[in-house]
């Protein structure tokens, strides 16, 4: 990949976890929508801070801050570098109090999974316990299992 003029670099991903990042951010789906986007995955890179880490570089596509925040549920230390016209702006994702959209409730009987009902799934985060609770059915989900509940 040539030098990114516009795009996103996701840094400080724990080593060998880049595939989880692509899953949470639904990069395959985004790539379909943004035909110009190309993705480079670097794995097991030497890092002063982590020893080893993964990096995901995405050319011509800006990861939404909202999605980066969801990523931080799984990887709290992840950092985002936005590149516009070659200039880098850092973004440190934070766990939001409420997550709207992006994730799917694992409880099939939840109203947020009902066919044709115009419901946006919402989850309240319980940060110290690394849990989130479905706003509708109260089902609890651990932060670590977020990749299994990404809406496809």
């Amino acid at each position, binding site marked *: 990949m040539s030098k990114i003029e516009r795009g996103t670099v996701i840094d400080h991903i724990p080593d060998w976890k880049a595939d989880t990042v692509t899953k949470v951010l639904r990069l395959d789906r985004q790539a379909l929508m943004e035909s110009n986007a190309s993705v480079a995955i670097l794995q097991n890179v030497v890092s002063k801070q982590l020893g080893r880490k993964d990096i995901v570089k995405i050319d011509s596509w800006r990861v939404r801050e909202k999605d980066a925040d969801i990523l931080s549920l799984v990887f709290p230390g992840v950092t985002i570098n936005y590149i516009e016209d070659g200039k880098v702006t850092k973004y440190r994702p934070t766990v939001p109090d409420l997550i709207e959209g992006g994730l799917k409730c694992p*409880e*099939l*009987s*939840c*109203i*947020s*999974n*009902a066919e*044709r*009902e*115009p*419901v946006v799934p919402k989850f309240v985060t319980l940060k110290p316990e690394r*849990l989130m*609770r*479905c*706003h*509708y*059915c*109260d*089902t*609890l989900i651990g932060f670590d299992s977020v990749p299994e509940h990404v809406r496809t």
Partner: protein
Amino acid sequence: MKRATDLAGRDIISARDFEREGIEDILKRTAELESNPGLVYGSQKGKLAALLFFEPSTRTYSSFQIAAERLGMKVSGFAGPSGSSVAKGETLHDTVRMFEGYGTDIFVIRHPKMGAARFAAEVSDTPVVSAGDGSREHPTQALLDLYAIRKAFGAIDGLKVGMLGDLRYGRTSSSLAYALSNFDVGITFIAPDALQMRQEVSHFLGQKGVKPRTESSLRSVVGELDVLYVTRIQRERIPDPTEFEKVKGMYEVNREALREAKPTLKVMHPLPRVDELSTDLDGTEHAHYFIQAAGGLPIRTVLLNMVLGGAA
């Protein structure tokens, strides 16, 4: 839900929202209404209640219907999905919007999906009272359960309450557990692993400092209990039929099962019963379930009246 007036215009979605002061107020008003049934008759005259039951119901539907009529209200809606637009595939969202357009003053909603009442409350500016949503909650049942307990013992604090049966898929036991967390009670969940209480219920209780005991057998705990709350296996909600086959008929509460119980033990059940609660208990001092069910009418009359801003 702190003071009675706080309920005016409010939704009743979850027993998680109940606080002790609010519960005490409702129970007190219900007792007053029972001793003077004419107290609130006609007090909401001219108002319209929409009873939207996306799942069939007998007791809950009838008690809300009679309650609304005693308050002088007109009642519209449906008692089950068949014969309504729901059978044609109309969504909860559209049904609520439509009835709101007809000038509904209060919604009473039962729905098979968990969280449906909360969603309806978001869709509508009109107050929503949940009459049960999926296997999640049945908050007004919890209030009538507390009312029945209070009626039997005069107080709720200090009692030991066992909940037996399908705690995972039964909505009444989770709402009752939430409501009981406002009192100083001992709670025991008695169920096989597959039907034990859901994680989110135990988590909520833990946050309120309540640590329920879990047991798989009634025998080991029956002698300690003041209240035994029996629930049926929710066949319609168990996703895997083989799971149902494994647990059906696992418990039957009858005279024999209560041989070591305190003479003062009260057996409660949200009804309908299948084979988990024997009719041989019906004539005994333990049987409290019909008294319990009768409380549904005054409790729901009081609630509708309070949500609609009634004084009594």
